[in-house]
């Protein structure tokens, strides 16, 4: 029976090829335009670490007091050395790391090659398991390496390629700022966008890769200065990098992993207690004003994703909606005229269910054809995104298969629903009356 309905549907659609093409095009373009823009906008507003972002938290401690707060009363968006090291020493989260941006020079082993400037971060060993950083060779370093200020380094696969020709370099030595460091790990391709662990310095997106990761205290001891933002509310009393460490200037990013609501509450209480201690010790002359934001909240708070981008996402969805409504309207107009045809079939003995089956088939064909066209156009659209978008954004844009399937489903279901109503109306009417009225 289905084959027969298919045949009927095709005949009916052929009778008004213009209108059919219009409906198919409307769905196809709607799906393609909204999905292409969705894939681009999602690329820039996406969650960089979706499986874990709810467990990652960024604490902020108010070490500046009321004068240093932002308009909405937020404390500084980074930490000073005193607070960052205190939080690391207390170690109240399961995993945590303070970090700061560095830009040391690496001297290749061969004398003929010039030193190269690389960028990276000084972090604690827990940084790697906390962020599920993938390793090609080796691994991160241990807590004792952190404590002993070991001369170890984790390098990117790119730097490994440059210095060691891509071979397993674990155990080999790299000269950084005229000191030797032992390679303990080589990262697999890892360049999360946005660079969520230190958005204050990367502005969120940074097409460059991070090539070296040194133990925090080792880098401090080796006097490798902060290459990222430094914000001060008062003049450091001593000059240089040491002076920065003894000042209230903020320049350190911090991230902690808290696995459940209880851990979050405990950590919040801990921060509160810490700030109160500082108040009692006379360092803070104000009540605790901490923040503890989850990673998605933090990215939002730091405006990592421009609000225009998010709105564009809605605009793209609006377009899909318009296309669907449009198709439904056209289908309605087409089907509502078919009551006489329905009357004939009913008079010849077709039950209502058969009428439904026939019209749903017809509507379904339009939906599927539009969906397939949309699929093809979306593929073409996403493939050509690189022509109009900046490289670092275009490379992030990829098709979200599950979402695309959902859209197709929505398109087909919407057209079938559009077919349902006129059929319902037509099949309510007495067949004899419909035949007569013609």
């Amino acid at each position: 029976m289905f084959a027969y309905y298919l045949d009927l549907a095709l005949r009916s659609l052929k009778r008004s090829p213009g209108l059919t093409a219009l409906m198919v095009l409307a769905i196809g373009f709607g799906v393609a335009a909204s999905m292409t823009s969705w894939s681009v906008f999602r690329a820039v507003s996406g969650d960089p670490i979706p499986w874990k972002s709810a467990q990652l938290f960024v604490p902020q401690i108010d070490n500046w007091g009321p004068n240093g707060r932002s308009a909405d009363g937020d404390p500084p968006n980074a930490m000073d050395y005193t607070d960052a090291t205190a939080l690391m020493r207390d170690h109240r989260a399961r995993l945590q790391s303070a970090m700061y941006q560095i830009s040391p020079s690496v001297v290749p082993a061969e004398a003929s090659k010039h030193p190269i400037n690389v960028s990276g971060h000084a972090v604690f060993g827990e940084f790697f398991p906390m962020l599920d950083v993938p390793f090609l060779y080796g691994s991160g370093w241990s807590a004792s390496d952190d404590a002993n200020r070991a001369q170890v380094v984790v390098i990117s696969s790119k730097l490994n390629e440059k210095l060691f020709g891509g071979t397993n370099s674990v155990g080999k030595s790299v000269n950084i700022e005229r000191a030797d460091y032992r390679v303990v790990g080589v990262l697999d391709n890892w360049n999360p966008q946005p660079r969520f662990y230190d958005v204050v310095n990367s502005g969120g997106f940074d097409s460059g890769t991070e090539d070296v990761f040194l133990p925090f205290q080792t880098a401090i001891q080796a006097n490798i200065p902060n290459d990222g933002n430094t914000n001060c509310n008062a003049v450091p009393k001593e000059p240089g990098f040491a002076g920065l460490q003894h000042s209230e200037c903020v320049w350190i990013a911090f991230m902690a992993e808290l696995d459940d609501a209880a851990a979050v509450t405990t950590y919040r209480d801990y921060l509160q207690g810490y700030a109160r201690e500082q108040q009692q010790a006379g360092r803070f002359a104000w009540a605790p004003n901490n923040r503890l934001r989850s990673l998605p909240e933090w990215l939002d708070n730091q405006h990592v994703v421009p609000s225009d981008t998010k709105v564009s996402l809605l605009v793209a969805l609006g377009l899909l909606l318009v296309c669907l409504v449009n198709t439904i309207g056209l289908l309605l107009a087409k089907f509502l005229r078919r009551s006489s045809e329905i009357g004939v079939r009913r008079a010849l003995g077709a039950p209502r269910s058969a009428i439904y089956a026939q019209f749903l088939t017809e509507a379904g064909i339009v939906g599927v054809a539009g969906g397939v066209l949309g699929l093809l156009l979306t593929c073409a659209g996403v493939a050509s995104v690189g022509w109009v978008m900046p490289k670092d954004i275009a490379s992030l844009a990829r098709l979200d298969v599950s979402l695309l399937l959902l859209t197709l489903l929505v398109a087909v279901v919407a057209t079938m629903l559009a077919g349902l109503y006129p059929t319902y109306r037509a099949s309510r009417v007495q067949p004899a009356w419909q035949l007569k009225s013609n």
Partner: protein
Amino acid sequence: MQIKPVLVALKKHRLATLLIALEIALACAVLCNAVFMIASRLSAMQLVSGVDESSLGFIQLGGFDPKSAHDLNARVVAGLGAIPGVQAVRVINSVPFGPAAGAFGVTLDQAGKQFRGVPELYLGAPGTPEALGLKLVAGRMPGAEDYQTVLEGYLPANSNVLVTRVFAEHLWPGEDALGKTFWTGRNQFRVIGVVAQLSVQQYDEEGERGAQWTVFVPVQPGPQLAGTYLVRADPRELDRVMVDARTALAKIAPDAVVDHQQSDTLPALRTRFFQADRALTGMLVGVIVSLLGVTALGIVGLASFWVAQRRKQIGIRRAIGATRGDILRYFQTENFLIVTFGIALGMLLAFVLNALLMKFYELPHLPLYYLPLGAIALWVLGQLAVLGPALRAARVPPVVATRTA
């Protein structure tokens, strides 16, 4: 034209009418908001840098030994200066649309209590403001004695600086900035001149720093300022000069690596800086065109359908005396009514949408004049779309009335 019979006829097609009206309403809401966003992108892209962009290029070198900074600077300035067409080479820390090079929090007092935001500092060697083409509006340009050698850190302890008019107004609203002082950490700045404009390196609209929050600090190049150069040439020769410069650097500074990403003409850096804005604008224009296209197609489809359906009625009307114009106007009126209904709904929707966006995304208020503009656009679109089917309807001959369906 009587509206009543049109309304009665529409009542018979309530659902289809409602859907088209809904489509127009959605289109209206999306259109108004999208056009508003495009307008705000375009105005953002008008950012005035305050320098002679078309004459300027920027060179960034890396990987050299800081100890050889003096020597490198001397070699590069002399070497690039020898390229035919180069008018000036100056050591500078960065340029507008160049890499972020120095943002410093400033205070009005030495104790650091009166915090006044985080402007960007431009550091440049003698002759830099002139090479940039900065326009002085008050005070004087730095003289030879103002360019100090930095002994420690990044800045001289006391410098005579230039600030932009906007930043001066921010620091001392309504006052004359000349001679006033401000501080960043232990370093003191005294304003000797106010320039019309000098934009920050990487302007972030959503940040707290204004686009013109900049300070020019005159310094002598040295280890704290090396490897980054401003090149000035005739606009017509700039592209060639920059290509020549990059080739020449291999010989002039074999010990340094040219950062090809950042070393470019200012127009190129500007283009790159606004790439995302342009892409977003393009995308939105695409969305709007598709939107209007689909809406027009919907109207054409439905109108054609109704014309085909009403051939006999049209024939009858023609037979009893209606002119072609009457038939044409009938369909035009019908379309006008549907679109008007849609627009009324759409304006409400646009406003609600904007209110929601404002609430969740801190977007500015949709100016009210966008609503009538959107309405006019949709009216015109509707009339254009219905014209074809309506003309076809007008051509239906009266004789149709005499035929059976």
